[in-house]
Each structure stands twice: as C-alpha cells, then as structure tokens.
C-alpha cells in the first residue's frame, strides 16, 4: 500500500499569545500540494499571526509544525525560507534604498561575494515573464508604487523557489486585470504542485481562487470548508457571526457648491517626473467623487498636492474659491480637509507611538487637546481615544502600546477614526477600505456616505472598482497623470469598461467598443458637463460656464 502523500504544511494546535491577547488559540491548519487554502476572518482574527508563525517570525506558545510530514521548528525566518516557505507580507518588507534585483537576493544564503548581476536580472525577467508580473529589475524600490512593490515581493518569493507561498492580502492594491493575472499565476503554481495560502477580505476573489477555506474568529478556527458550494453570504456570516449587507448606495440628487477645485495642476513625482499633467476637477459638497486608476498613475501626487503635502509646478488648488498657493498641510487641515493616505504605516501613522499619540497626531494643537499655549492634555486625549476606539471598533491590546502591534485592518480603522471624527468639510480618501474585513468595510462605507449626506465633499481614490461603482456620484479615470474622462453616471459603466479606461483607452474608444459589441447604449448623461480634458483650457472654461448656476468659476 502506497503511503499517503503528506500535506506540504501541517500546523497542529498552534497557540500564540500577545500581552494577554490570544491571537491564535489551538489552531489546526494544513496545506496540501496543488491546492489554494484560504484563510478568512475579521480584522484581528489572527490570520497574519498564524502565517507569521509559519514563516518563522513568531515562536508559537504551543503547537507544532510539520513540513512534508517532518516535524520542524523554525527559529528564524531563514529556517522557514530554507524549508521552502515564501511569504508576501501584508506590509511587505523591502529595502527602499536598494534596487529590485538587490532586494531579490537580499538575505539569501550562499551568496557569492561579487553578485552576478546579469544572471540575477535575467532570472528575474524570466520569472516575471512567466508569471506576468511586470517590474523593472533595475529600479530602486523607493521609486515604486505600492502595487509595484507588491509585485516585487511576490517575485521575491518565487525567486527563492518557495514550495509554499503565503499571500497575505495580495490583491488589495491591484486592478481587475492584475488580479486576474495574479490568479493565473496562482493557478499555474498550483498546477506545478505548490501549496498556496491566500488571505483576502474580498469574498468574490476567495471563491474564485480557493480550493479550501478556513475561517478564523477571534483567534479560534471555526472550521474548514471546500470552496465549491459555499456562498458569499454564508462566508460573511460565518466570519462576522451575523449577516452583512452591502448594496450600492443611492446617488445624491442635490449636489452642494464646489468646495475644493483643482486647476490645470501639474505636479512632479518622487522621481522628478511629471506625475500629474494638468488635471482640473472640482469636488462639490454632498457628493462622492470617485477617482479610478492603476496605482502609480499620478493619483498619489494629485492627492498630496490637494492637501498641501506636495508642491505643484503650476496650476492651483482652491479651497472654497481661495487659491492655496503652496500652503502648508496645516492650512488645508484648518480649512477642514481630511486626508486618508494610502500608506498608513509610512505616512498616516507613527508605528512606534501609542494609540493616544496617533489619535491626536493631526489635532494636538487644537482644543480640547491643547492646554494653554504649550501643553498637550493627555488625559483629554486618552478619553477621546477611548471613545473613538469603541465607536470604530478598533481591537487593541491597550491604549499605551505602540500601534505597531495592531493588526492591519485595525490600523486602518484607527486612521479613519481620527480623520472622520471631527466632521471634516472635505475628505480625500485613498483606498479607505484597504485591508478591512467585510463588516468593517460596510461600516466605513456607511461612514463615508454619512459624511457625504452631512455635507462633506468626498474624494474617493481607489483601485477597487466594485467600491467606486458602489459609492461614487461622479467618477473620473486617471491614466498617466491625465484625466481620461469624468462621468456623472458611473453605474452605467461596467467594470470592464473602467478597466479599459484605467489601462489608457480613451472614453470614445470604449463607447465605440460597446456599440460594436452591441451592448445597450448607456443611459443618462454619461459625460459630466464639467468634463475636462488635459491641456484643453478653453474647453474647460466653456464647459464650466455651460454648467452655470451654482458654479462660481474659480479661475474667472
């Protein structure tokens, strides 16, 4: 009788405690060769912790790990890598100052003193060709967008010939086409007998790619299920413990006056390139203005310029009709512009400081946190923090510990709590539900809609088309620093149409394509009367005037 093939990974009774929190409580988890096993669970359920145990970053307090039937104890990540485990972390860890190819070989054992750069670059190109993961091996990592960095992180694991690949929320920053190609990569690896652990909060993806699904809740495993025959609703319910609904929000009928306008804005990127090439748009109160685009097409620079974090080459940003010049971030803040940056650990939060300090980060100089001219009242800050943590359901081991210890989703919740808590007039939100579980996503979307209905101007920048289509009252697509078009009727467009626009196809061609395919003509006014095309200043003005009424022409 042939011996049964042992699973690639068998984790048995894994327990991991942090300062009183049981992040993993006697969890059994296995991965077989040639399967995708998904871990599903709310923010803070313990998914990343379990995988960090697997890849040798954390020592478990209990339980054991078998790799291909052999008992192993990983003392360090190196041991795990040597055993064939490759992990792409939720907050992946690359060295920003070094190039892509250097990052690939960093930490590899048995490196020759002189690195055979050519060979390495060639191998990277081979792998990236084979798995359709485009990157420039010679670019320094700090110049790459988060999406590109993630591709590097995946490549890095593949470069090390991992037998078991752990992907902790890999799709959060990819557009549909990229997600499809990632799935193709995953399927290819599965076909080659690899074992893949997949973590995602997007249930459609989970169902599309998984063979088996394990659900964690509050550190405990609820169960493992075959992916066939499970529905989204069922999964959500098992995860959260209650039913979750989210349907598209009704669009607003009455838009308010222009709150923030951008006029012919040209902004340089980190590499000195022109990242934003003459963008004009305007955010109105009581609307959600969506901006779709593939990461690295200028949306980051645009947003930073819109909140004073980045100077512009030419053009201007106007808040309530007032030109901001190159005003400081605080000037924008004082006028009620909130900003939820994409890069939460790098920009939005201070990982080594505690929750209190992070909560007052953008308001410590104001009442009630300021006591007199010089001091900060930490008691008031603590009270405020306690309330926010409760209201936004941030799960934390304590208010006094560095927020580094919080789970990814909880970091995001914390940042949102801070930015939304004092009724901002405008909210620039980049990927606000990145990494949030279904329940929290629902919660955040509701908060954004609530802010809109209260009268805030919301600028929603995302790569998640489902989200953009569900929330936006108007939608623009950005490609290579130019606005491809602005539509007043986003729901008329399909995700495929948007994907094409994001990839650089012009709106006209997309419309023609629809006609040729014989799709139904788009209902309602597709083109926003205020649609601006880059470089066409006269047309912009004309279009703006044509809209008339509420429009104070900011630059007239």
């Amino acid at each position, binding site marked *: 009788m042939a011996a049964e093939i042992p699973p690639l990974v068998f984790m048995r009774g894994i327990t991991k405690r942090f300062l009183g929190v049981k992040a993993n409580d006697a969890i059994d988890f296995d991965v077989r060769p040639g399967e995708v096993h998904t871990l599903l669970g709310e923010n803070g359920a313990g998914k990343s912790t379990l995988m960090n145990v697997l890849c040798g*970053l*954390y020592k478990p307090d209990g339980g054991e790990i078998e790799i291909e039937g*052999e*008992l*192993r*104890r990983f*003392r*360090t*990540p*190196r*041991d795990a890598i*040597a*055993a*064939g485990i490759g992990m792409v972390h939720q907050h992946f860890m690359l060295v920003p100052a070094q190039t892509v190819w250097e990052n690939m070989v960093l930490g590899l*054992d*048995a490196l020759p003193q002189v690195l055979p750069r050519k060979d390495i670059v060639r191998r990277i190109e081979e792998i990236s060709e084979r798995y359709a993961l485009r990157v420039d091996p010679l670019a320094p990592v700090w110049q790459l967008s988060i999406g590109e960095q993630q591709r590097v992180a995946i490549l890095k694991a593949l470069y090390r010939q991992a037998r078991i690949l752990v992907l902790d929320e890999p799709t959060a920053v990819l557009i549909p086409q990229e997600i499809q190609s990632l799935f193709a990569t995953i399927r290819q690896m599965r076909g080659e007998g690899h074992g893949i652990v997949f973590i995602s909060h997007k249930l459609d993806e989970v169902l599309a790619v998984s063979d088996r699904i394990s659900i964690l809740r509050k550190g405990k495993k609820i169960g493992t299920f075959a992916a066939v025959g499970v529905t989204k609703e069922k999964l959500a319910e098992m995860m959260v413990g209650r039913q979750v609904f989210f349907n598209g929000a009704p669009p607003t009928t009455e838009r308010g006056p222009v709150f923030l306008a951008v006029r012919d804005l040209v902004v340089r990127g980190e590499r000195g390139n022109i990242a934003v090439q003459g963008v004009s748009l305007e955010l109105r109160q009581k609307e959600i203005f969506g901006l779709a685009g593939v990461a690295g097409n200028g949306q980051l620079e645009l947003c930073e310029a819109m909140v*004073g*974090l980045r100077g512009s080459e030419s053009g201007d940003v106007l808040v309530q009709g007032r030109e901001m010049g190159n005003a*400081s*971030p*605080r*000037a924008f*803040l004082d006028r009620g512009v909130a*900003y939820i*940056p994409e*890069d939460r650990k*790098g*920009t*939005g*939060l*201070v*990982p*080594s*400081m505690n929750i209190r*300090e992070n909560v007052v*980060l*953008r308001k*410590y*100089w104001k009442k009630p946190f*300021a006591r007199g001219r*010089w*001091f*900060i009242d*930490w008691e008031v800050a603590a009270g405020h923090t306690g309330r926010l943590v409760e209201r936004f359901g941030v799960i934390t081991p304590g208010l006094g510990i560095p927020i580094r210890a919080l789970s990814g989703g909880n970091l995001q919740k914390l940042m949102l709590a801070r930015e939304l808590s004092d009724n901002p007039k405008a909210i620039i939100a980049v990927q606000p539900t990145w990494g949030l579980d279904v329940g929290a996503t629902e919660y955040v979307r509701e908060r954004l809609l609530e802010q809109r209905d209260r009268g805030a101007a919301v600028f929603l920048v995302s790569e998640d088309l489902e989200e953009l289509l569900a929330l936006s009252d108007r939608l623009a697509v950005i490609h290579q620093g130019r606005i491809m078009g602005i539509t007043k009727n986003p729901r008329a467009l399909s995700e495929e149409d948007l994907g094409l626009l994001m990839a650089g196809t012009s709106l006209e061609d997309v419309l023609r394509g629809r006609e040729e395919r014989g799709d139904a003509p788009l209902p309602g006014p597709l083109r926003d009367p205020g649609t601006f095309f880059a470089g066409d200043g006269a047309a912009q003005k004309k279009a703006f005037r044509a809209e008339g009424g509420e429009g104070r022409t900011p630059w007239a």
Partner: protein
Amino acid sequence: MGLRVVTEKRVRVPVWLEVLVPVGAVMGALIAGAVLLALLGVSPLAAYAAMLRGSLGDWYGISETLVKAVPLTLAGLAVALSFRMQVWNIGAEGQLYMGALAAAAAVRFAFVDNSLVMFCLMAGAAALAGGTWGAFAGYLKARWNVNEIITTLMLNYIAIHAVDYFVYGPWKDPASLGFPMTASFPAAARLPQFFDSRVHLGIFFAVVFAVLFHIVFRWTKWGFEVRVIGANPKAAQYAGINFLRNAVLVMFVSGAVAGFSGMCEMAGLQGRLQHGFSPGYGYTAIIVAWLARLNPLALMGVAFLLGALLVGGDTLQVVMRLPLSSIQVLQGLILFAVLGAEYFLTYRVRFIRSVPDSPKEVD
C-alpha cells in the same frame, strides 16, 4: 562543513537581557582592563579599588564626580534633544566652546559688578552663541539637506580654534607666564561654589534642565512635534509639522544648552577662559545621551556614573602613577564594551553548522 555566524534582528528584547547585557559588558571590560593593568605591572584589584575610592569613596571624590557630571548632563541633554528628532548633533563640544567664548567676551566688554546681572549676561551670551552655532548647522540641514554630522563636527574645530586664537592672542593674560588663558575673572563673574567643594551653581541648572526636558518631551506640543519628526518624518509632514522651523529651533536650543554648560564650566571652575578647558565633554555627552536612551531623567544617573569613571581615572593617574594614556585606554575599553553590547540587544547572534543548500536541519 564549518561554523557559520548568523545575525538577525531581534523581534523583541527580553527584559532580563536588557539588564544582563550592560552588566556583563562592564564586567568583561573590567576583566580586559585587569589584563591591561597587570601588563603595566599594577595590581588590578588595587587599581580598581583606588578608582572606586577616588570617585565615590569620600565626600571629596563624590563632589568631584558631581562636578564632572554637570557638563555631561547639560551637554547630554543638548545632544539628546536633537537625537530625539533624529538630527545628529555631534557638535556639543564646539557649542560648549562658543558659549564659553561669548561669556568671556561679556565679562571683558560688558562687566557689571553684580553677580546676578553678570550671571544673566554671561548665560545669555553663551546660550546665544552656542545656539547660533547649532542653528547654523540645523538650517543647512533643513534647507539644503547638508549632512549635520559633518557640519557640526567641522564647526567643533572652528570653535575650539577660535577660543585658542583669543587665549593665545589678544585676550591672553600678560601675567600668565605664557599660559594660554585670560586673566582671572572678577568675583562677580564667577558662579558660587558650595559645600566646601568645587560643586558650583551649574549643578542646580543641570537638574532643572533635566526635569524641564522631561516635561517638554512628555507634556508639551513642541516635545511631541520633535518626537514625531524623529519617529516618522513623513507623518510629521502629514501632521503639518514644519521641519525647517523645528530643525533650526531644536539645533538652536541644543546649542544653547551646550553653550550654557560651557559657560558654567568656565565660570564655575576655572574662573577664566583657557585653552582646552573642556576635555571632550561634548563628545562624552553623546555616549551619555545614548546610554540613557535619550531619557532626560536617566541621563543624570548615567552622567554621574561616567563622571565617576573620569574621576576614578584621575585618581589612578595620581595614586598609581599610571600614564594618562593608559587610563584613557581603560576608560575607552569600558565605554566600548557598553556601547558594543547594545548590538547584542538589537541582534541575536547564532552559530550554526553550515550544511550548504540542505534544508534538513531539524531540532
């Protein structure tokens, strides 16, 4: 098949290690020092006993240790402030000299025969001069991203030589028999000394400033801004904290405190400006700040211990008739061990038998 050394960053530092490592380091250094002393033909035990007795054995020793702890604390605070912001001011020595120079100028050109007025004048001049010296480097850093480590280091040489220019040249006391020093200051331009020792008014300010810095870091907006910039400059920008303003301000305050300590050292001890009046307090202060983990209150304790090390060394020189250089080697050994031990707190070092390309290692 050979032994391979692997180092990796610790995920967490266990508490026992945080205590054990520095203690072990000092023990190790003392043992290495014992070998050195034995080679010099001195009984190590007797030498260490002499050091201990000289620095902490009687009131005189303790008072001398306190005297040395004063400039170490003040300059250490100055350094710690800038380090908190991740601005590496290693120019405390130069700022200290500039402070003393400016205070000496105040005595020379604006003397008023009233201790209080004179103290304010000297302190103001010293703080202004030291502060400007620091702020200059801070401005270069913030405005043009000029590396502050290099500028502050270079400014040290300029400051030390500027003092030399005056004490060898125009300000030299004709009655000094050729020694490079100014004339003795009048009584009103000296800081009072207490307890029948050389402990002077500076000690009061060392404590006050340490407590003040503690309050600034803990409770004030400015202290918070400085810490945020140090912890995450991008988040600081996002919070609307002005880097340029803070870099200049932090370097000014840092330089001012260092300058003030130079003034205290001069007016509290020597009572005149002289060549090389600081034996590198500004540099030792960097070690003090670092060992105290930039904590102002802990800094006082560390300054006291390092002060004791310096005084103990002096005793050794006198009692054991050891050359100054051998004492400096001993002191260097201890500091080297303690600082080097930091490495073992952040990194774990393992020796493993290397079996190339075989992932078979199981335990």
